[in-house]
């Protein structure tokens, strides 16, 4: 069975003027359907870069990337937009909701950019909000919601197009412990529903909820291990 995500010898250099910084060096990994992967490592270790390459937000300097066995790097920019729209759902540390849109409109954003026409996009956005328990706050503006609620709206937005992979960059980094737990249990719930989740975190406790932890240091994978509390699904690792 092909992996959902397969990275082979991925390198990424960021250029700052004449200097270039190696953000990722020779990263090879697979992520299978249904996995709950935590990426850990110190600041600047390349976690976010890894996430943006997997999420088709950024292009690696070299290497290859297969999504469902299909070569992603040869696809057009237009196709990349479609992949971001349909295959991935992003959750960010600072929520990144559009401040002038209501919760419902924010959740509807990925539906707005779908190439095919949905019969009832509003019902779909509403259902996604219901799944994160915010069905009653649909018409609220982000500024009228608490941090935890905003992040739940962001999660609803990430899952509204039923993506293959949820990519979360420090999703609980800006939240207190109790709201953090709410978000984590929502993610766990979604994972039980079959969603593949990959999250970047500093928080050992958050990483502990995952069934697989990938450790990065200076752009290289230094650790890839299944955590003790894993449930089922196989973990494919080359290390």
């Amino acid at each position, binding site marked *: 069975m092909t992996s959902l995500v397969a990275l082979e010898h991925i390198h990424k250099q960021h250029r700052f003027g004449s200097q270039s910084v190696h953000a990722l060096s020779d990263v090879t990994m697979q992520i299978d359907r249904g996995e709950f992967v935590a990426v850990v490592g110190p600041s600047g270790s390349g976690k*976010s*870069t890894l*996430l*943006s390459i997997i*999420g088709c*937000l*950024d292009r690696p300097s070299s290497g290859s990337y297969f999504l469902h066995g299909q070569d992603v790097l040869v696809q057009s*920019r*237009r196709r990349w*937009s*479609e992949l*971001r*729209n*349909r295959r991935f759902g*992003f959750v*960010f*540390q*600072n929520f*990144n909701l*559009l401040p*002038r849109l209501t919760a419902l409109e924010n959740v509807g*954003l*990925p539906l*707005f*950019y*779908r190439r095919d026409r949905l019969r009832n996009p509003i019902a779909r956005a509403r259902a996604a909000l219901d799944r994160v328990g915010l069905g009653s706050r649909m018409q609220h503006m982000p500024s009228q919601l608490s941090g935890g609620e905003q992040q739940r709206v962001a999660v609803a*937005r990430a899952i509204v*197009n039923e993506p293959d992979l949820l990519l979360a*960059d*420090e999703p609980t980094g800006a939240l207190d412990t109790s709201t953090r737990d709410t978000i984590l249990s929502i993610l766990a719930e979604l994972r039980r529903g079959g969603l593949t989740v990959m999250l970047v975190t500093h928080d050992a406790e958050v990483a502990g909820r995952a069934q697989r932890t990938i450790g990065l240091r200076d752009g290289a994978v230094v650790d890839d291990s299944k955590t003790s509390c894993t449930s089922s699904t196989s973990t494919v690792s080359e290390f």
Partner: protein
Amino acid sequence: MRSLGYIYLALQSIRAHMLRSVLAVTGIVIGIAAVLIVVAVAEGARAEISRQINSLGSNLLLVQPGAQNAQGVRQQAGTVLSLTTTDALALAREVPDVVIAAPFVGGQKTVIARDLNWSTLVAGVTPEFFEARGWRIAEGQLFNQDQVASVAKIAVIGRTIARELFRGGDPLGRFIRIDRTSYVVVGVLAEKGQDFTGRDQDDVIFIPLSSARIFATGRSQANPDAVHTILVKTDSAQSMTTVGGAIADVLRQRHRIMGHKDDDFRIQNLIQIAQTRDRTYRQFTLLVSALAGISLLVGGIGVMNIMLVSVSERFNEIGIRLAFGARPQDIRRQFLLEAVLLCTIGGLLGLIVGYACARVVPSALGWPIEFNEGMALIAIACSSLVGTIFGLLPAERAARLDPAVILRSV
């Protein structure tokens, strides 16, 4: 549905920065208003000119005495009274295409009716004059050949005279005193407005040519038969140049002007003069419109500036949109539409402001204005075009944004 979504987005973002948006479109508002006012005034003036051309009557030539040549210094036209009533008769008889040759004498006079006085042009004419100009009588009647022959003391007056001397009362049958003679008013001409030189064509009193002679050219003149002008009507516009030549030939012969000696008369084509004026006016209008258009350009640059600021301020929003599947062209469309909408709103405001100004200011100054739906549509189209042109660069910049910023900026 999707485009509605974009319009909604654009309106929302314009509203979110209300003050900034208003300031950004001020240039557009002023530009559109300025162009609109200029065009409205220019169109009004041109409509006025074409009305004047019509009121001149068609196919008219003006034959006037030439200038006196006093030791090489040429005096004003008409300083010699070289034309006579017999010249007019000769022209009508001898030049085939001449339909009417109407003699005219005139002078500025202070006239009195009871306790009111007024300074105006008093003209001595024959009935042919009215026929040549195509002027109609509004009240009463014109004088006829018999009345001209019998040196009748009667007058046909313009509307302005009726207003100034009789203050709205019925002028028919009332008396007007010119010099020491009283004339009874027998008719009032239909209103004609200004001619192309801006003179009020209704500010005139017509009396029979024979009656006018007494004061207009003076009895003591060497040539008691002299006239100031002969108005010639030809039978078609095409024949006007050739008729001009034929008239010159007849007059040179009658005045015994030989060889290369200068004419003692000159021939003017009224329509041509008016048309030249119209052309000059049109060029002037174009120039002023272009100047007003520059303010539109400046307005467009203002909008571009604001849009560029808006784009860099909204890198995060653009990043979010890209992360959730917006294609570069979606982003481009969004920002372009925002610029176009901003400018179109500015255009609408400019239309309102311009329309209000064009209604109030020129009418206060007494200028005629012309305003129509076509001009409004063009104004809106112009502002949308400005929005498109000046929205392209900011929209392109937005569309080029690297989606990876959304994770880097965290």
